[in-house]
């Protein structure tokens, strides 16, 4: 997708018709719109989302007043008035024009609630415009609304992405991008289909009552599972909240001079504790695996001896191995002569004697089996000894790890006590808050654990009920068909659950790699970002011996958020060319429109962000004030600038202090703020090159 132009007609502060054409060349892909604070930049960002989705951001005041107020106020009563935004864009080798407009005759001083109309056309090869049916559905397929916040970026809010509440937004964006929402919903909805089908089943007369009862129990169990899932989700959210608080408090502790050293020691011990716990869990898993595969050996202390003694007895009696081979007798009979030269003619007594021996002769297979059995039985004792040795090894290592864990936990506890004894009230207060947050987090972990156990138990009950229903004799062919359909639905649900997990983690891994690459390009610190398995954006400080959470400054937050946006755009581009066709996601090239990305940044971060933006997407539109951007941004962006516009702000006020009246760009001067104008509003002028 590439924007060609946007045209505003009487839309909020923009009076009359005003048009912006966007830079599209790969090397000069940046369009900058310079506008003063409150001068119409955010309205322009909102013009995109309003035209495409009919929404304005929540910070837009008087959302019903879409028609320019000067136009509205000056129009005679009853005059038909209109406001519209028209965007021309290219997507998938087609040019589209989308227009959202409101139309209303003027009655009174206030505009009525707008009822916007949406139209979408596709330009055909001959140049004529063909209307597209279901424009809103079509637009949502091209650029889904749920992704819009990442492509139409409000710099003042994008930072929220890296805060702990941002995880949900990130997860949703990833799902939308990959088209996983449909799959996720399918997994949720398929059990409902099965439930509906089950209600249509009829059992044999005596079983009908039981079937009804089982169906009722199944529905109750399903309800209880959903209740536990809700409880778990709420606890997980709260746990995340406490985790974020703990991280912040830890960070705060490192910034307090008196506590710094102790806090670093605690970080080190906590890191060691995590490693020891992981190693211990691995040993426990290995031990469980060994018990699962070789545990039976513990119950065979005497059996091998008994088997060998029995075999020895058979061997002594000459029954094992067999004294005579059947294959040998067969060969003599076939040859018709014994090895002593006696003829073995048909019906001869010698032949009859041999044939009677044949039945008693041993088979080669029996011989082989005997040898194998003896080998196996003889090695059982050895295997038993080895298993006991291995178990003792695991037990020893696990006990050592547990001892080490206790030591580390004690050390961590001691640090907590020392911190609370420090004279600094701030340290003591932070430590107390930290303890409270940790204890609250642990409570939530316990709730999650209990909910998980209950879900597991109820799931087992559910499976058992399903088995009982399946086992009932159904009444007719129709019910048998229903049973088959339910089986197919359940199988489909299981397959989709597995596929969803693989795809989600796959895209998380790819995005994580992209974020790291992009962030490394621009970051000014030795930090490393991570898109964690739960889709939280984390930032780690790698400068010490232990990886610790990095302090997230406004500048680093902005870079991290932009790296995420860049990774989404990169993934969308890749998914179109990569042929991931099973699940139809959102593919292609996307532009990015950014408002207020330089606000509150220091000069070095402004420079870094300005250097980063053109690399973020194949088309970048930046809305900024001259004061926010400064000279540094202009210098950095200059080589990539394709188009520039000035948004001139008009105000009828005359007592505005420190207004910037003009702006000089490319050697030309443009009005920037017109104080004491005959109107209030905004006007767009293209900067001459």
């Amino acid at each position, binding site marked *: 997708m590439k924007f060609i132009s946007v045209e505003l007609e009487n839309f909020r502060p923009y009076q009359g018709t005003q048009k912006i054409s966007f830079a599209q060349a790969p090397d000069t892909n940046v369009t900058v719109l310079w506008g003063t604070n409150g001068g119409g930049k955010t309205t322009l960002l909102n013009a995109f989302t309003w035209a495409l989705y009919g929404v304005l951001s929540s910070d837009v005041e008087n959302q019903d007043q879409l028609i320019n107020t000067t136009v509205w106020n000056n129009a005679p009563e009853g005059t038909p008035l209109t406001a519209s935004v028209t965007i021309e864009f290219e997507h998938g080798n087609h040019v589209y024009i989308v227009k959202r407009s409101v139309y209303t005759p003027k009655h009174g001083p206030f505009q009525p609630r707008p009822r916007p109309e949406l139209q979408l056309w596709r330009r055909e090869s001959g140049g004529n415009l063909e209307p597209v049916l279901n424009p809103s559905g079509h637009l949502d397929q091209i650029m889904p609304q749920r992704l819009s916040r990442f492509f139409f970026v409000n710099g003042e809010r994008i930072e929220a992405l890296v805060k702990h509440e941002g995880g949900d937004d990130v997860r949703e964006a990833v799902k939308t991008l990959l088209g996983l929402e449909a799959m996720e*919903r399918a997994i949720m*909805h398929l059990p409902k289909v099965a439930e509906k089908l089950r209600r249509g089943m009829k059992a044999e007369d005596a079983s009908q009552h039981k079937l009804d009862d089982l169906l009722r129990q199944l529905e109750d169990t399903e309800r209880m599972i959903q209740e536990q899932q809700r409880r778990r989700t709420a606890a997980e959210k709260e746990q995340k909240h406490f985790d974020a608080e703990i991280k912040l408090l830890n960070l705060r502790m490192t910034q307090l001079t008196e506590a710094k050293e102790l806090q670093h020691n605690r970080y080190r011990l906590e890191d060691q504790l995590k490693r020891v716990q992981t190693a211990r869990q691995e040993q426990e898993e290995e031990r469980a695996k060994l018990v699962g595969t070789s545990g039976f050996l513990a119950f065979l202390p005497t059996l091998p001896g008994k088997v060998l003694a029995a075999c020895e007895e058979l061997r002594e009696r000459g029954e094992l191995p067999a004294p005579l081979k059947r294959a040998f007798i067969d060969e003599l009979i076939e040859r018709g002569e014994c090895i002593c030269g006696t003829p073995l003619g048909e019906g001869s007594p010698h032949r009859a004697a041999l044939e009677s021996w044949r039945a008693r002769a041993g088979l080669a297979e029996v011989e082989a089996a005997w040898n194998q059995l003896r080998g196996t039985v003889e090695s059982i004792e050895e295997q038993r000894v080895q298993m006991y040795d291995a178990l003792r090894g695991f037990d020893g290592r696990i006990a050592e790890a547990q001892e080490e864990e206790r030591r580390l936990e004690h050390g961590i506890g001691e640090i907590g006590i020392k911190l609370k004894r420090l004279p600094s009230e701030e340290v003591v207060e932070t430590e107390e808050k930290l303890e409270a947050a940790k204890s609250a987090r642990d409570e939530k972990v316990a709730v999650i654990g209990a909910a998980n156990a209950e879900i597991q138990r109820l799931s087992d009950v559910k499976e058992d009920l399903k088995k009982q229903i399946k086992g009932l004799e159904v009444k007719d062919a129709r019910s048998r068909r229903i049973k088959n359909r339910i089986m197919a*639905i359940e199988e*489909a649900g299981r*397959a989709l659950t597995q*596929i969803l997990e693989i795809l989600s983690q796959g895209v998380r891994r790819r995005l994580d790699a992209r974020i790291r690459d992009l962030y490394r390009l621009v970051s000014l610190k030795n930090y490393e970002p991570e898109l964690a398995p739960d889709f939280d954006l984390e930032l780690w400080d790698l400068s010490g011996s232990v990886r610790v959470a990095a302090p997230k400054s406004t500048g680093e937050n902005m870079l991290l958020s932009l790296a995420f946006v860049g990774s989404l755009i990169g993934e969308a581009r890749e998914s179109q060319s990569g042929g991931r066709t099973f699940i139809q996601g959102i593919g292609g090239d996307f532009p990015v429109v950014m408002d207020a990305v330089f606000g509150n940044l220091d000069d070095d971060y402004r420079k870094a962000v300005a250097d980063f933006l053109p690399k973020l997407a194949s088309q970048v539109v930046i809305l900024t004030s001259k004061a926010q951007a400064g000279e540094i941004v202009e210098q950095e962006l200059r080589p990539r600038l394709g188009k520039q516009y000035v948004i001139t702000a008009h105000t009828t006020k005359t007592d505005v202090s420190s207004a910037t009246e003009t702006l000089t760009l490319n050697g030309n001067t443009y009005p920037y703020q017109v104080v004491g104008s005959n109107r209030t509003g905004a006007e767009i002028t293209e900067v001459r090159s």
Partner: protein
Amino acid sequence: MTDKLDQEEIEQIQEILSGTSANAYEVIRMVIALERENLHKSEALARNTVRDEMAKKVEGIA
């Protein structure tokens, strides 16, 4: 860019799908198409639509 892990991902999905019965595969195909058509609806509305539509669509499964 199809790296080794991407390839593994594709193979794992192929394996799951190839181990799926023809009826279940048909259910997957139908339900994904139906969910996609109803994505613009709220979850509750989509749930009812998919439940009712799928119950009819699976009638083709004997």
